[in-house]
């Protein structure tokens, strides 16, 4: 079994699958991390928004446009925007009233949304798994040293790094970013200085919902869309965000890469117990460095 580690093709193959997993998780977890960093809320419903994105994208592809590259691209954009709008509505109508209450109530609030959205999806789309075929143009692959790299996975990796870079630009090079960073540190002071913090929060939540919807829509050609995918993904996203550091963007990227690689290489070493590795890492990071590898301690 250990000999497997001497086979470069196998290693490269595991690296590829780990990288794809990681970038997917980053797409989802970045929104979760953003919400925690700025709004200080742990959003269980982030997985539900992801699921909504997946179902909406499937719906559009299946009933309206078919899986041409253009149709699929349009479906992804529309689904992500629709989920962004749902996020906007949630923030404006409900979440706004939860900022001042205790964490317990905030957690339960987002959990209530999980329950509701889970059933809404079941009601509209049923319980049978559905899936979307890869657009023909993205169905191919190329080979590097005997390892197949599907175009679609490559696209995910590119989008993932693109979003990370976009976030970095936004946070560090724009006035918006400066305000967001300020809001993360001291909401009241920022409000006193004349910024409309309320709309800033709305904007952040909408953006995070958009990202959740985007990742949900992009996952459709890779994974089946089933009820319960919301609960499953939110735990993975929590693991990633906690390892990297709640609220830290680079931390989330690092956490995603660690998670992806550990799961993908862990399967070689301990096929049955790789499911543990992730939770044990999460617990270990929380015990040793609760604010995560790249996060900052908050008071």
């Amino acid at each position: 079994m250990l000999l497997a580690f001497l086979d470069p093709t196998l290693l490269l193959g595991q690296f590829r699958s780990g990288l794809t997993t990681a970038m997917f998780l980053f797409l989802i977890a970045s929104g979760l991390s953003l919400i925690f960093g700025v709004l200080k809320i742990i959003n269980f419903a982030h997985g539900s928004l992801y699921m909504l994105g997946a179902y909406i994208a499937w719906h559009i592809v299946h009933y309206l446009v078919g899986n041409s590259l253009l149709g699929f691209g349009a479906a992804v954009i529309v689904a992500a925007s629709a989920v962004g709008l749902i996020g906007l509505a949630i923030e404006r109508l409900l979440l706004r009233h939860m900022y001042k209450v205790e964490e317990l109530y905030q957690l339960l609030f987002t959990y209530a949304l999980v329950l509701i959205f889970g059933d809404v999806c079941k009601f509209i789309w049923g319980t049978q798994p559905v899936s979307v075929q890869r657009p023909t143009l993205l169905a191919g692959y190329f080979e590097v040293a005997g390892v197949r790299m599907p175009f679609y996975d490559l696209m995910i990796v590119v989008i993932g790094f693109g979003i990370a870079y976009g976030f970095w630009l936004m946070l560090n090079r724009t006035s918006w970013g400066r305000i967001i960073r300020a809001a993360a540190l001291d909401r009241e002071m920022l409000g006193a200085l004349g910024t409309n913090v309320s709309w800033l929060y709305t904007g952040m939540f909408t953006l995070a919902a958009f990202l959740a919807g985007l990742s949900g829509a992009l996952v459709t050609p890779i994974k089946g869309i089933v009820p319960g995918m919301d609960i499953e993904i939110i735990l993975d996203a929590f693991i990633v965000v906690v390892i990297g550091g709640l609220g830290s963007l680079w931390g989330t990227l690092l956490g995603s890469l660690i998670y992806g690689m550990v799961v993908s290489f862990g399967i070689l070493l301990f096929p049955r117990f790789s499911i543990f590795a992730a939770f044990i890492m999460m617990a270990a990071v929380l015990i040793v460095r609760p604010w995560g590898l790249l996060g900052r301690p908050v008071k």
Partner: protein
Amino acid sequence: MNQQSWTDRIPWTLVITLAAAMVPFVTSRYYVDLATYIAIFAIFATSLNLLLGTTGLVPFGHAAYFGIGSYVCGLLMGELKVPFLLAFVLGGVGGAIFAALFGFFCVRLTRVYFSMLTLACAQIVWAICFKWNEVTGGEQGYPRVPMPDMAFLDWLPVSGRGLITAKFYLVALVLAAVCIAAMRRITKSPFGRILNTIRDNAERAQFIGIDVRRYQLFAFIIAGGFAGLAGGLFGIYKRGVFPDYAYWTKGAEVLIMSILGGINHFWGPTVGSAVLILLNGVVVSYTEYWPFVLGSILLFLLFAFPGGLLGGIEALYRRLRGQANA
């Protein structure tokens, strides 16, 4: 505030137990079934509230200890033929041991980090139950937990197949009453008062010389132990133990029960579990979308009655009395 109101002098545990013991004789098997769930979840939710309402910690992985209790008790009875009462107690001990192990690390964290670590611990337990096929039966669970025969209750005037349900219900009810009475003693003891102090202001508690972490750890262990006891009963009643007993959403269910009843009252979780389970019985006969109903109730509670049902009743009572005095 030392003055006791007349309601405090009623031995509530005894009154409720006696009233609940009538259920098999005056209602149908269906309600006995619901009442058994209520008894078990009353222990589970009250144990959670030892952390939530009494100590001010928010665990998101309390299901872990429930699950461990159910596996320990179920496997001991099924595989090693250990007698029921001993297996039941050992289920609680199992829950307490794991709570000590995980709690040692969890109480070092505060607020949302505490919740996250308890969640991670619960998922580790779930993963063990899910993957350790040789012992836990893995994904399929262990479906051979025997029902204790409880021959000493054969005189009950309940006929036919309802008899075994009724017998187990009465046993579960008595055990639940003992557990809840014990937890009530704990919350009203000086130890419980110190937990309240920590909840209200952990920093000041530290200043007056209380070892906050140690007390939180004790509370965590006790809560884990009682959750384990509840889990043992649940496994027997369901005639099997399955990994999803330890899944974190199970812990969220009891969180909702506690909130529904009111976390600031000792009886809140009991009331919450009773209301939620009865409501579930009604709702599922009309629609399969119970989670939707539950989520909506939860939203309504959070916005309208953050103090839960008992909190709401208390506020109403105060208001009426205030008007009467004025």
